[in-house]
């Protein structure tokens, strides 16, 4: 016989009432765990995507890059290019670790079924991509080779393997603009990355420049900084701006930081929801235990008559409350984990308007530290909610309780 066993027996005395209290705490803890883990997963996903991106700064010609991308994807002409020699100046800037020039063009199917996006790259590009891995074939045989490397999705769609021929056929507008058809050897196929690379066709930069009649042109330079701290990135961005050339310098960390700030801003909201849920459950627990104390007043009086001190009774009632809350906490974390897929689906749907680009990674997983935090919080709630009933129980005067006086 010990305090915990006695407390457990007392809890089981009113099974339904205790169960409802446990469920109340469980619901609050499940909400808390799900929301916090969703936030953590979102931040984790963003960081992963930044890591996959490989680049820290994007240098593009002045103008809206989104507008430019939209124009190209609809078969228009890229509004502004930069000269390739500008890439050399960027690569030579102190603080630049790696830099990769890119030229992009597209052949668009008006029906939207067979659009193809071509990326002209150099040997530097794979170094900037964390998931650049060939599952078949090799890299380009030379800087102006008539070869392509296919993203995994594109290779499946075209049903092409290394050694096959990819027939590049320009549309009428392209031919009018001096673009050329060509039969290109498939040099390799990329492993699936889960990024936009999966749907692209990669060619050597010089080949794209020749076939798309864009000699000496590029549209973007991806830059990886030597040091990845906000001060170094900021300094490098300033240095690149100082190069002039009518360019826009986008530190990509800022984009992620902006997204992370958005997440941070929701943290207050999340805690507010969780706080309300916890307060409601704590009130439920307090009510349950307080009722039990009133009902067991004579019994508590007897315990004091046979020697239980104020602290002993306080500890017993406290233990009952903490057990209920701890049980609720365990149930809540378990429920949150079991229902994580459904919760994630719901949150993704609910937050899609606020978070334009939710990471594709799983956002709600098992986080032992967070589960421990929830259990500690549930225990704390129990200790706080149980204080008043425990104090009332400890203050019961045995003689009044035994007499049955109020």
């Amino acid at each position, binding site marked *: *016989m*010990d*305090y915990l066993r*006695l407390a457990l*027996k*007392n809890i*089981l*005395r009113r099974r339904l009432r205790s169960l409802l209290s446990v469920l109340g705490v469980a619901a609050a803890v499940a909400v808390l765990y799900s929301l916090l883990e969703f936030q953590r997963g979102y931040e984790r996903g963003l960081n992963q995507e930044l890591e996959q991106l490989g680049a820290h700064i994007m240098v593009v010609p002045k103008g809206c890059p989104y507008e430019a991308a939209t124009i190209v994807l609809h078969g228009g002409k890229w509004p502004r290019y930069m000269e390739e020699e500008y890439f050399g100046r960027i690569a030579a800037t102190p603080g630049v670790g790696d830099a990769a020039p890119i030229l992009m063009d597209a052949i668009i199917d008006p029906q939207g079924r067979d659009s193809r996006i071509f990326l002209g790259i150099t040997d530097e590009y794979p170094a900037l991509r964390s998931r650049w891995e060939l599952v078949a074939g090799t890299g380009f045989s030379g800087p102006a080779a008539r070869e392509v490397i296919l993203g995994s999705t594109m290779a499946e769609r075209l049903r092409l393997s290394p050694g096959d021929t990819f027939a590049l056929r320009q549309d009428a507008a392209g031919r009018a603009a001096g673009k050329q058809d060509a039969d290109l050897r498939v040099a390799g196929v990329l492993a699936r990355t889960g990024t936009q690379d999966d749907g692209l066709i990669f060619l050597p930069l010089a080949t794209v420049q020749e076939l798309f009649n864009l000699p000496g042109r590029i549209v973007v330079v991806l830059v990886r900084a030597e040091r990845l701290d906000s001060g170094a990135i900021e300094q490098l961005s300033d240095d690149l701006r100082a190069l002039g050339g009518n360019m826009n310098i986008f530190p990509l960390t800022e984009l992620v930081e902006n997204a992370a700030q958005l997440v941070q801003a929701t943290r207050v909201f999340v805690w507010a929801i969780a706080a309300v849920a916890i307060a409601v459950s704590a009130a439920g627990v307090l009510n349950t235990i307080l009722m039990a104390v009133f009902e067991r007043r*004579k*019994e508590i*009086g*007897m*315990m*004091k*008559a*046979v*020697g*239980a*001190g*104020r602290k*002993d009774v306080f500890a017993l009632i406290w233990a009952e409350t903490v057990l209920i809350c701890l049980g609720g906490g365990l149930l809540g974390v378990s429920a949150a984990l079991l229902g994580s897929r459904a919760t994630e689906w719901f949150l993704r749907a609910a937050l899609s308007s606020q978070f334009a680009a939710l990471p594709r990674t799983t956002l709600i997983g098992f986080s032992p530290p967070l589960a421990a935090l929830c259990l500690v919080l549930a225990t704390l709630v129990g200790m706080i909610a149980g204080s008043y009933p425990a104090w009332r129980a400890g203050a019961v005067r*045995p*003689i009044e309780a*035994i007499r049955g006086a109020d």
Partner: protein
Amino acid sequence: MSARPQPAHTHGPHSDGPLVEAVDLVKVYLRGDERVQALRGVSLSLPPGDFCCLLGPSGAGKTTLLNLVGALDTPTSGRLRVAGLSLHGGPSLPAAARDRLRRERIGFVFTEFFLVPTLSAIENVLLPQLWTGRQDRRYAEELLGRVGLGGRLSHRPSELSGGEMQRVAIARALANRPALLLADEPTGNVDTATRDGIMALFRELNAEGLTILLATHDQELADGVDRVLPLSEGRIADA
């Protein structure tokens, strides 16, 4: 009364003096605006090993006196010492010391049994030991065997008769080896045969040295004790 050997189930003698010494105890309650004088100057002395009965009708002040002696309540005036500790009329005793006195030196048997319904017979007996931190299951089993319930250790109160429940309550009162047993109408809720059994048990315990103070209105019960103190309207009529 002759000195008796200390039984195995008590903590041993507290001192050479009386176990209970009350002098001119007065207890006044306030019931709304009305002052109720429950005790009007009661004096009594219980030497170790005494078996004494407070006999009187309902409202005579028996329970009040028992509660004062059991450190459950405090007198309005007078002096009271129990097991060598001054409960009133001397240096004030901290609440923790009163708790310890009840826990270690005094056993209570109530008219209502006050057993915890979710606990088995053995667990109910072990309950007072929870507060001392010294769990002695073998002794608890021995006590239940002693009161004739050795075969019903794991039965819950709802599975026991009234007489059995009172015997569990008596075993519980003895769980911490008290020097003094206070019994308030212990046979009030049991039949005649059970009453006789309980009294036989009390006499047996007393014969082993346990001091017992019994409160009852039942003359037949009083006939079985060493000493009867008739209590009437808050006074001991003839000590």
